[in-house]
Every structure is written in C-alpha cells, then in structure tokens.
C-alpha cells in the first residue's frame, strides 16, 4: 500500500476504529461511510474491542513479494464480537494449534518493511486470548 494510503488508514490498522450507523446501530469495519445494512450514511467513529473468534484460517507457504520473507505464516478470518468480520494474520500461535472457533484478540504488530531502508508497515494481527 502507498504511504498516503498507509497514513489514511492508520486508525483502522493500529486501533481497529470503524463506524457505527446512527440510523440502525450496525457496527461497521472496515469503515465505508454508507451503512451496509440500511444504506444510510454512517460516519460516526466506533472503536472495536478487538475480541473475536476464528471463522477460518490458512497457512501461507508462498506469499506476495513483500511478505515472502515471513513464510510460513497463518492468516485467518476473524468474526469480531460486535459483528463484522476481518481478515488478518494470526500471531503468537503455532499453526497446528489453530482451531476454527478459537477466541482471539487484536494486537498491533509489524506487517512488512519496504526494503532495508524503507517504511515499516504496521497493522492488526490476532493472537489467542490470554487469560
């Protein structure tokens, strides 16, 4: 993602900030400005708790260029407790221990680097709930 896009979406990727629809109350992540439930404008910021459950997962052995140095790594679809689903990497867990239905929580981690001297991209990953 380009640097301006990284900057634009920082609140989403560092803090899981989405939107809540003031008309129907639906929680929206990622933010999209029009409520997917009732189609009304929805631009009120909402901070998600970061807690969710694994809906599906997959182990990446071959990745896009910027992620190649990190393989193998695990990706998952996580259903957040407020409703929306997000896609992210899992971290602090062995692939063999991942289960569909596992409770997880959001952490902010390094995603990749643009070369040795380039920008470091950070974003959300999910780890098994501690405690």
């Amino acid at each position, binding site marked *: *993602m380009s640097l301006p*896009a990284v900057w634009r*979406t920082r609140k*989403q*990727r560092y803090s899981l900030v989405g939107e809540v629809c003031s008309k129907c109350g639906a929680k929206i992540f*990622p933010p999209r400005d029009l409520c*997917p439930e009732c189609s009304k404008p929805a631009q009120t910021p909402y901070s998600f708790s970061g807690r969710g459950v694994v*809906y*599906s*997962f*997959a*182990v*990446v*052995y*071959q*990745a*896009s*260029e*910027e*992620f*190649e140095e*990190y393989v193998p*790594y695990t*990706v*998952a*679809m996580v259903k957040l407790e407020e409703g*929306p*689903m*997000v*896609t*992210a*990497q899992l971290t602090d867990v062995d692939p063999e221990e991942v289960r*569909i239905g596992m409770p997880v929580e959001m952490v902010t981690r390094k*995603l*990749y680097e643009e070369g040795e001297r380039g920008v470091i*991209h950070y*974003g*959300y990953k999910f780890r098994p709930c501690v405690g």
Partner: protein
Amino acid sequence: MRKREVAIIGVGQTKVGEHWDKSIRQLAAEAILSAIKDAKIERVDILYVGNALSGELALQEHLGAAIADFAGLRTVEAYKVEAAGASGAAALRLGYLAVAGGLADFVLVCGVEKVTDAPTERVNSALSLGIDGEYERELGLSFIALNALIMRRYMHEYGYELKDFAGFSVNSHKNAAHNPYAMFRNPITEKAFVEARMVVEPINLLDSSPVADGAAAVVLCPVDMAKDFQAKPVRIASSAAATDTLALHDRKDPLFLEAAYLSARRAYEVAGIKPEDVDLFELYDSFAIMAALSLEAAGFAERGQGVKLAMEGQISLDGRIPVSTMGGLKARGNPLGATGVYQVVEAVLQLRHEAGQNQVKDAHWALVQSIGGVGGTVVTHVLEGPD
C-alpha cells in the same frame, strides 16, 4: 426498442502457455485474425479487449487502440475491459450489449493476457490486485490465501477431506489431453493431487490453475445476418452479470457465490431454461473450491454438495453435468483476462459439434461463467447451438 438476438459467427484462439516470441499485440492479433477468418467478415464496428493486468505485467495500457492498430483495425473504436478474472467475459457482455441494442452489427471481442514478460514474483503479486488492497492484501493476504480460507471453512462445515476435491483437477487434465491449445495435457492422479506441495494450505500446487499467456477472440453479429457468414452460428441466448462485496470478509455468507447465483438465475430466466437443460458448464475452476461453489450457485447441487459431483464422476464428459470440457482453467490454463473468451470459444466448438474426442453428446445448451476475484464480479452467458 426491442433487443436483437446475437450470434457468435467466428472464433479463434492461440495455445495457452509461455509465448516468449510474441508480444501482447501479436498474441491478440493472432486470435483476432483467426476469428475474422472463421467468420469471413469484412468489417468490424467495435473491438472490446478483455484484459486484467496489461499495465502491470506487459507495461502497456490503452490496449484497445494498441490492438486495433496492430490487428489491421485502424480507426475502429476499441476499449479495454477489466473485471479481474472476469475481464474476458465482461468484454463479451459489452459486445453483446452493443449488437443486441442495435448500435453495431459486427463486434469483435478479444481476450488477451501477456504475463511472461514480467518476473514470476511480480505476476504472483499482481494476481492479488483483484482483492481488497487496503484490508486484505496489506494485511498479508493473497488471492490464493482467500480461496484457501473459503476451502478450509467449507471442509469444516461439510466434513470434507483434501482428496474429495481431486476430481476437479483430474477431470480437467483428462479433457485437456485432447485439446491442442491446452497448456497441460498430462493426466494426473488423485494420489498426485493429495501429495502435491502446499501453496496456501489447504490449497496445493495441483489445485491451482496455472497463469500463462494466451489470446482468444469471437465475432458477434445479429442472428438475422448470421447465416450469411457461418453455417453453424451459436446464439447468445442470454447474458447477465452481478457484483458482490470486494472483500471476502464483507460477504453475507463467505461460502456462497451470490453474484454467481444472481447472474446465473437471470441468465436461465432470459434464456428460458433450467439447470437440467444445460448440456455442459464451462465454469471458472481457478481452484477446486470455486468449481464446487459454482456448481452450487448455478443450481446443479445443494449447498455443500458441489464437491460430491466431482467425487461421483458426474462432471466428466459423459456425466450428468460435464465441466471444463477442454481442460478448464486448471489444464487448458488461465490467461487471466483472456480466460473468459477461451471458455466461450470452447463452448461454441462443443455446440458446433467440433470438439473432437471431447465432444459432449448432443450438446445444445451451454452455460459459461467467469469469476473476478473471489466472486466480486461474475458474468454468466447461456449459449444455444444451431441444431
């Protein structure tokens, strides 16, 4: 104003593979000239070029003009049409609309992709330009990874193992053996499928369709004029398309291809047929899981049962619903933006009864469907044979 019936009166295709000696323009011209010769037309009113990644991989945009110029169609209006994997089919849809709407008589649709000028890593990364850049790709997801997520959940919900999916690739390779344009004509076994190296688990190397160079083209004209040019014109009985959320995580049901369902339903309705009337289905087998979900969305199997059609051999040339009759994406190959047009060319050959050893008996109705991304755009056509 009534819409006109549209016929396909000419087809052309190149081999799918690594064409080091041909540029994107040369590939397109080869298919175009072949289709024009088959149709015996002397004039082209509009050229639609289906292509997914020419800017990124062939370093050439403005493809409509580039190809019109190179293929002897200077001054003809021409456009590149892009919808990720559904680009070729989308180009056909726009060509269909132009003829059906009475605004053009002879329309040329060419799908073309040139990937081998770019290094493999760039090709693999570029495939992920069709997924959500901000909320899928940036977080470490690729096009294959999203398909793997769908497959894993599907296996979990319906109780399938990896070997249950082998039938799709085995069938595709078997059919490609008799298709001289196919990229991979070697047979594969279920054993080889199960033991293949993982790419993004549970998707392995023998489950992933190969991306390569290729070009295919068709010529359209009104049905009323068709017999002047082609003894066996194939009618486009219907053409429909739909989108779904770009990101997989935004889907109402990630295991349901809603855009495939909607476009197929509309296509059946306009053509006046039902799934049981379909003689062959050129579905979008980018991966076995997509083939299974396509069969379900198009009404050939209940939810979660699409895989059983492959397990029971129902997808073979003499099965209940033959798929990938010339090798599909898996074995004929997947030249991205060109693939949708290859599917149509192959269906036309079947309906003309010119499919040789791969001929589906008494083929009269063909369903052809292309998927962009993981279902973000789906374009469906129903074709009717001349007899």
